[in-house]
């Protein structure tokens, strides 16, 4: 094969070898088709474990809160607000009480108005919730100044 085509041919072979070598280095060993095949499963397998190890913030476990805050736990359990989880107002627990030692309570009007701003939408359950007109009902006050969120029906304000 002693002709003019040989040298460019070798150059091309060389380029292919270099590209394959670079690919070998930068593409991780666990990259390939997953259980969903080439069309939907072409990925780096290690990423699944990375997502599984993502930090959990919300415990959403009322027993966890009850261990210390049993008074509030018992109070809210006897009120219609039992369906609202502790962390919905008190924020995600993370590793409370170790870190953070204190949770920030959302006492904003907005938090209460999520459900209690009156919207008469009879094709949804919203119409069945007692609501107020936020512009009309003591617009400058925090709701918790008069209403006890842990016992909104019969409880006194805290």
């Amino acid at each position, binding site marked *: 094969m002693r002709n003019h085509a040989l040298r460019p041919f070798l150059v091309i072979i060389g380029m292919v070898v270099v590209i394959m070598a670079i690919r070998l280095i930068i593409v991780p060993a666990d990259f390939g088709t*997953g259980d*969903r095949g080439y069309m939907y499963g072409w*990925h780096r397998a290690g990423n699944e474990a990375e997502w599984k190890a993502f930090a959990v*913030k919300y415990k959403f476990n009322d027993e966890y809160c009850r261990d210390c805050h049993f008074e509030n736990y018992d109070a809210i359990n006897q009120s219609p607000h039992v369906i609202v989880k502790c962390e*919905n107002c008190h924020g*995600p627990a993370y590793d409370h009480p170790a870190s953070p030692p204190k949770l920030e309570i959302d006492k904003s009007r907005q938090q209460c108005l999520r459900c209690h701003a009156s919207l008469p939408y009879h094709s949804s*359950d919203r119409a069945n919730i007692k609501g107020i007109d936020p512009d009309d009902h003591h617009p400058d006050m925090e709701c918790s100044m008069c209403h006890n969120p842990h016992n909104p029906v019969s409880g006194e304000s805290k």
Partner: protein
Amino acid sequence: MMTRRDFLKGVFGSLVGVALPVAALEIANPNKLYAQKASTRWVFLVDTYKCVGCGLCVKSCKLENEIPYDANITRTWVERYVITKDGKMFADTPKGARDGFALSKIALGQNRYHDIRNEDIKKAFFVPKLCNQCENPPCVQVCPVGATYQTSDGIVLVDRKWCIGCGYCIMACPYGVRFFHPVHKVAEKCNFCYHRISNGMNPACVDACPFGARMIGNIRNPDDPIANIILTKRVGVLKEEYGTKPQVYYIGLDKEVR
């Protein structure tokens, strides 16, 4: 020169060849068989009758999944639909309903609002939206680098180390659930809280909902109560005509919902 015998042989041979399904020639693939037998396929169920539009799901999702709280991006959101007696349809989702719906007027964007009198409302309701974890996810097909993919339990994930941020997947999703993460500079989407469901917990939005409007189940588990509702009750999905086979099912879906 071709004899009649050779000609008939040839015709018969090629007919058999054409009729033979391509699948019959496929070499047995144990990986494929394993995938078909996967014990988990996550599915989601939304009861729109129970949703009151409080947006606690959106709030908890943004905090759980580290989505910048004040940026107008979110993995899940709640839409409000108001249909008036003269047949007009209004829909809005201010800040993705992160703070719920405190106003009766419809947000049109850019601080403009449309007032609707209560007596003019024919029907009004809320529809939570999230990733449909499609069985045929178009967002995965368009990814040029293999950064987004589907796991064997049906969840579509984004590899943050591998994504180049080209945005093809954001364009390809017919449901508009994907967005660009301003901190990580990659495509971002709902993954049913993969870190929670893989460790025996519910997604944050499911637990945050006070009314039980959001539910998650495993369609491959015959004892799963949520799977049984999907399989035996009347449920709908969004944009079925796209052929994406979405796996978020809705109770009480209206024709106005898109």
